[in-house]
């Protein structure tokens, strides 16, 4: 008898909405609900924060909100959860989920935490070259904040085999979070690159949540989407061979169609025939997509090639600061006043001897987003924000940006719109570099807790 498993998305990044996860938990009839909550610098930013504030637990700041929203429905429907909310403390996150399970009156539920991906202390012995520029990773030694490996699906599969109802990890390749349930339920071999290619491909369609259900998509008059204020997160109905239907809960806004799926399929992909993940190399060029009903797209024939012998490593480094602020002009002559304001800022930065690697003064409303490729004949806007940013080595230098924008009120030019700054105008840069580590050097550890 052909088995189909239903996998729903619970989040696509740290700041994602909560309600669509609850909707999937309540109405998605899911076997699994999978959460992706991390960005490129999440691990490093968490390390920096932990150092400054020892009370920071080191896992997703929205852990409580997300788990409270979905646990009751997941427990009622027998839906398992796979989530990367663990960040730098999967064990702490798992114990916090145990707390919520007990709060909801459920005993005997197993929660597994996966560790072993944080390699900060060993990264220089385990890695050799920086992928982006070919230089030795040893050149980063003075500025390293953290280093982590992108784990694949296997540790999650192992945790599910131990009977875990909830699996919490730190950094895992995003598609792997969604593929691990497929490997577990269908018994796929980790070296079966045909099935893993298909499964990882489906995981890639799911990992950005609403980006396949009408999000990051609508363009009025060209690509219209019903009720774009009410988007659901996707659901994949997956078969044993890795083919799947991508869909969403009925009654939600948004759309799942050939266009939304194609856009997400190629998102963040470089060579579509060789999309590297820890589990497999995915080949999207063989994919077949067909409409299979309203808001249902059937995805078949994504293929795979054998996985590489290495795992990707992200190395987060302290790289300085950015100072940023803006002020405004409107009405006739907005542009000429903005141009004079820019000239004044440039002279002021000379007077205060600003030491910056790069300074950027944009006219938001004219050329801030597309920069130097803005057409020369773009029309003069009615209103303009002069937006200035500088990248510096020292915090005191970055602070000068906000201070000089402060001066543009009383000591600036006519008819300048300005606010008293409410937000921090200076922030730290955590730059991320990539490297590779031989697969066999990384040994994930699984710890199980029970409510």
């Amino acid at each position, binding site marked *: 008898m052909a088995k189909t498993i239903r996998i729903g998305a619970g989040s696509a990044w740290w700041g994602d909405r909560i309600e669509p996860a609850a909707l999937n938990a309540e109405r998605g009839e899911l076997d699994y609900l999978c959460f992706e909550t991390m960005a490129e*610098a999440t691990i490093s930013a968490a390390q920096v924060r932990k150092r400054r504030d020892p009370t920071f637990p080191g896992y997703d700041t929205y852990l409580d909100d997300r788990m409270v929203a979905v646990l009751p429905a997941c427990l009622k429907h027998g839906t398992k959860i796979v989530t990367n909310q663990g960040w730098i403390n999967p064990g702490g996150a798992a114990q916090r989920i145990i707390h919520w399970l007990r709060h909801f009156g459920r005993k005997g539920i197993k929660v597994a935490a996966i560790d072993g991906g944080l390699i900060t202390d060993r990264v220089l012995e385990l890695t050799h070259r920086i992928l982006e520029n070919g230089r030795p990773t040893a050149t980063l030694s003075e500025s390293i904040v953290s280093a982590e490996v992108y784990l694949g699906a296997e540790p999650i599969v192992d945790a599910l085999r131990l009977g875990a109802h909830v699996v919490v990890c730190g950094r895992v390749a995003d598609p792997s979070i969604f593929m691990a349930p497929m490997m577990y339920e269908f018994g796929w071999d980790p070296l079966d690159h045909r099935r893993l290619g298909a499964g990882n491909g489906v995981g890639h369609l799911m990992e950005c949540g609403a980006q396949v259900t009408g999000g*990051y998509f609508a363009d009025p008059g060209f690509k219209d989407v019903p009720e774009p204020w009410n988007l659901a997160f996707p659901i994949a109905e997956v078969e044993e061979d890795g083919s799947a239907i991508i869909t969403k809960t009925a009654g939600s806004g948004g759309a799942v169609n050939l266009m939304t799926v194609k856009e997400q399929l190629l998102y963040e992909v470089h060579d579509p025939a060789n999309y590297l993940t820890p589990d497999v190399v995915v080949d999207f060029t063989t*994919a077949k997509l067909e409409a299979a009903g309203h808001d249902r797209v059937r995805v078949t024939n994504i293929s795979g090639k054998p996985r590489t012998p290495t795992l990707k490593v992200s190395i987060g480094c302290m790289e300085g600061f950015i100072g940023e602020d803006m002020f405004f002009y409107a009405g006739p002559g907005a542009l000429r006043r903005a141009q004079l304001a820019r000239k004044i800022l440039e002279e002021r930065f000379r007077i205060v001897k600003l030491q910056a690697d790069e300074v950027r003064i944009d006219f938001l409303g004219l050329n801030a987003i597309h920069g130097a490729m803005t057409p020369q004949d773009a029309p003069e806007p009615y209103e303009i924000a002069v937006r200035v940013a500088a990248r510096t080595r020292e915090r005191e230098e970055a602070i000068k940006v906000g201070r000089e924008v402060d001066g543009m009120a009383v000591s600036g030019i006519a008819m300048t719109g300005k606010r008293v700054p409410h937000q921090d105008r200076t922030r730290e840069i955590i730059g991320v570099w990539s490297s590779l580590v031989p697969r066999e050097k990384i040994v994930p550890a699984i710890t199980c807790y029970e409510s």
Partner: protein
Amino acid sequence: MKVMLQHVAHCRSGDKGNTSNISVIAYSPELYPHLKAQLTADRLKAHYAGVVAGRVTRYEVDGLDALNFVAEGALGGGVSRSLCLDNYGKALSSRILAFELDIPDSLRHHLRGL
């Protein structure tokens, strides 16, 4: 007939390090050969001059009527280092909407937004 690309294809950009990938997907299979013939990597790079500092590689996914352009040096050094307000470059793909294409009049009914 000369039309802006926005009537012929839809697009999306994504980030990885200092590289942006821009997918350009024809609205119909009939439009794809014309898109493929005219929107070369060199022409896209020229259209993005001043922002894309590195190489542009074009991948063709004919089965999906799609082109995938990988543009290096497009994100100001990477999302955490960039001084661009749009540091992820998620508004980058819209620049190509203005690219002029020459489409046979007979395919007019496939165009969107006219």
